[in-house]
């Protein structure tokens, strides 16, 4: 006999196969994911995705009999009351062969499995690339993150797995015949009643003899209980976690939106979709993404997500107020040496005359130098204009931003006309460099 230690051999032999499987399910997955993000809130991207894929592409068919047809006999264990010739109603709850079908029908109609968060986002952002990854490299300390990994025999108390532990304890106690508390109580009460003369032994023995007998049993039982503990260290099972190191990288995303009366609910919905995609995308690259919502009319304020998308205000439109508010928040809370800053601005393009120049100046001198990337999307539901070639006249803001976006790499501007435009525009914004050239 030889013992070989294979523990150092590479693990993950099947990662290749898993990758093949994911590739195969890719088209399905993409559709499932699209359905999925429609229902999400902007910042709900923390978990992986349970995706149900119809099994067409990943199903492995084989010839099998249809359990709904024909006549068959089965042998089953554990008969209690049936006699030959009995009939059992074909009812799932009938207590009869109700589980039969599941026992033999090994069919799988669709296949549920959990994509890791990375796989999910990878699929969502296939061949997209984050525009500027500089700071990630600068600040890539590793912090370990715990991940579930089965059970262990040792561990800290707070990870004790009660179910597993008690299950083992129960088996051990039963196996070693540990007397139950109820049995002890019964002996004790009988003893007390004998001693007080309330009852006499049934079999005609003398009370003293019975008392001695009971005392002996009681002592035995107590001794046994003290020897066989309720919970023994060998019963203990702990949830086990493995720590996997991950780099720290953090980003803050500013969502700026014009909420003046000219932006209706539909336009806000479009903006929300865009913000959500951006947020998902950032999550993909940073562990820690803060989202700051700033809405503005003629005056800007920081609000929560709900108010941001649903609240409505009236007033003029001064876009620069939002930019200034953003700069104030950066100074206050997000030192630029520790945070990657992203800005997404959604607007219908209106601005009071005169403010556009101010905005452009702000962008050029203060905003763009400190941000990794800024995306400006103009929501323009009337026109079906794509990429700003056709459609109505250019808006004030568009005219102001357009020259800047040509000279600055980290500013991109696009138009969105309907929901279908969002993803193409988004992909267009974040296309990886190979695809551009």
């Amino acid at each position, binding site marked *: 006999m030889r013992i070989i230690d294979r523990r150092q051999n590479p693990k993950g032999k099947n990662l290749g196969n898993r990758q*093949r499987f994911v590739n195969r399910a890719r088209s399905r997955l993409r559709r499932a994911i699209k359905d999925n993000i429609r229902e999400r809130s902007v910042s709900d991207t923390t978990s992986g995705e349970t995706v149900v894929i119809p099994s067409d592409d990943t199903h492995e068919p084989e010839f099998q009999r249809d359990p709904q047809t024909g006549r068959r006999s089965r042998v089953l264990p554990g008969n209690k009351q049936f006699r030959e010739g009995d009939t059992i109603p074909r009812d799932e709850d009938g207590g009869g062969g109700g589980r039969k079908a599941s026992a033999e029908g090994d069919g799988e109609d669709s296949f549920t499995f959990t994509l890791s968060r990375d796989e999910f986002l990878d699929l969502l952002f296939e061949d997209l690339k984050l525009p500027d990854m500089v700071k990630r490299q600068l600040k890539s300390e590793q912090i370990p993150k715990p991940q579930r990994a089965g059970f262990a025999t040792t561990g800290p108390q707070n990870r004790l797995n009660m179910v597993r532990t008690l299950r083992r304890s129960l088996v051990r106690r039963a196996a070693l015949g540990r007397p139950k508390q109820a049995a002890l109580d019964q002996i004790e009460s009988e003893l007390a009643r004998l001693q007080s003369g309330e009852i006499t032994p049934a079999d005609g023995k003398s009370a003293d003899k019975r008392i001695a007998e009971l005392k002996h049993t009681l002592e035995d039982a107590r001794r046994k209980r003290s020897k066989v503990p309720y919970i023994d260290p*060998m019963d203990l099972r702990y949830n086990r976690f493995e720590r996997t190191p991950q780099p720290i990288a953090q980003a803050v995303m500013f969502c700026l939106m014009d909420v003046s009366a000219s932006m209706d609910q539909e336009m806000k919905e479009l903006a929300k979709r865009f913000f959500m995609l951006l947020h998902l995308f950032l999550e993909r690259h940073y562990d820690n993404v803060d989202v700051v919502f700033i809405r503005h009319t003629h005056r800007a304020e920081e609000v929560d997500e709900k108010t941001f998308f649903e609240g409505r205000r009236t007033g003029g439109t001064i876009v620069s107020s939002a930019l200034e508010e953003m700069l104030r928040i950066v100074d206050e809370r997000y030192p630029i040496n520790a945070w990657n800053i992203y800005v997404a601005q959604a607007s219908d393009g209106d601005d009071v005359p005169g403010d556009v120049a101010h905005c452009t100046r702000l962008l050029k001198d203060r905003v763009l130098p400190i941000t990794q990337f800024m995306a400006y999307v103009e929501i323009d539901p009337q026109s079906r204009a794509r990429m700003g070639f056709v459609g109505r006249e250019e808006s004030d803001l568009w005219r102001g931003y357009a020259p800047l976006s040509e000279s600055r790499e980290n500013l991109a501007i696009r138009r969105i006309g309907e929901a279908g435009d969002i993803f193409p525009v988004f992909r267009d914004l974040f296309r990886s460099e190979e695809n551009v050239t």
Partner: protein
Amino acid sequence: MTAGKTQQRKSSSGKSPGTKAAGGKTAGRRSGGGKTSGTLLFEGADWDFGTIQRTFEAVERVALTELGLDPYPTRLEVITSEQMLDAYAATGLPVMYPHWSFGKRFAQQEMMYRKGFQSLALEIVINANPSICYIMEENTMATQATVIAHAAMGHNHFFKHNQVFQRWTSPDTILDDLRHARRFVQDCEERHGQQAVERVLDAAHALFAQGVDRDRRGQRPDPRSERQRAWQRRREEREAADDLWLRTVPRRESDQLDDATAADREAQRRALGLPEENLLYFLELHAPLLEDWQRELLRIVRELAIYFEPQRQTKMMNEGCATWVHYQIMHSLRAGGEIDDATMLEFLHLHAHVVAQPEFDSRGYSGINPYALGFAMMRDIARICSEPTREDESWFPDIAGNGAPIATLRQAWADFRDESFIRQYLSPRLIRDMRLFKLRDDSDEPEYLVEAIHDEDGYKRIRNALAEQHDPVMAQPRIEITGADLRGDRTLELKHDVHDGQQLDAMEARRVLRHLRNLWGYGVRLREIDAESGAEIAVHEAQET
């Protein structure tokens, strides 16, 4: 390749423990007597290579001397839980060609494991010479001892001696074959692209269960006779062609022409070796459009099907043998004072878990547990040999009271497969103990009918039904190729013999036929024919593309 589930593995998955304290009590009675002379092999849960070596030697000693086993030499390989997860996604074999379906299995297993629904197999043993036995790093020493007794002794002896394994598998070369398969598939992927290779493999996997010659009772495929067979086929084809040429010399009389076509068809059927139930083999030889590398891929999958076939046929016996062996060995070590109470307790916990048989109406029921049935039958046979009742004497005159339980078991392990083993050895006593009953499910009736229970009238019927249930031939729809019309539109004709009205799942059948069509290259038609009346019940087709 659903047929390829490794049946060597021992998984404690899904079964609820807890209720089986009975096993523990028996043990308490047996081993409670206390310690004798032996020194402990190990203490506590931790193991190192020294303790494993010592324990292996002790286990082997008991296996060879007390039980008279004769396993292949063993190679123990210690692996981590991740590697275990890897191993059984790829059907448990150490070397495997790449395919997405293994990734799918891996994704499923991993999810179950990470969520804690299922614990991992404790070991995997490969039917090779020398046999490879994987043990997991995370196992406690008590588990390692059990696993060594179970796999390295029990399964291993079974692999070496059971006639089904001897006929079907060649343990000396299996690893080399697999390495060839992997290299070949990788080469093909490089040359022809992953998609082209997957197209063939997917189709072959769908026909996995139709890739063995069950009727020929498993002669081991010997390369020489394989070649001979192929060569003979070709000669027959040539002769048929000559024959055809002679017959198709123009004749005037039209009635003779009809005659000739019929004869021609018959000759062609003969040349193709029809009817043929080994679909993979037929395609490998006769599919008109396949290239050589595609045929080789089919052969690789077919070899794999052959490798797994004995495991399908002997699952219950194999597990029963291994479980009985580990139970004997652990008790023997305990009696010799070589393992302590804590180890014994842990062992019994594990053992009870493995042989738990939930009743049919309990939530945990998922069919008859092969470990439970196998172990119970082995113990029952040993009991019949040493302490027979009157009943046993009339049922098993050959072995009742022969006083040689171990020799009798060894003989049984060598000579039978599940189906015949049950027919031979399932005793009335065990039928009563397990309270087995036979239930008839007629889809036309509103109710199930209890056909037989554990009484004098029912024993034999239950035994036969349980035996059939353990026969892969009966469990599987019988499908054969009946015609190929090579000179017409080349539609491949298949037939399903419908017994007891059990039709094919139509959706699945169509999907498999699509795969079949991909290999055959022309249209494919499957008729379902009622075996009793000869009436055609259904037709499934996959059109030529």
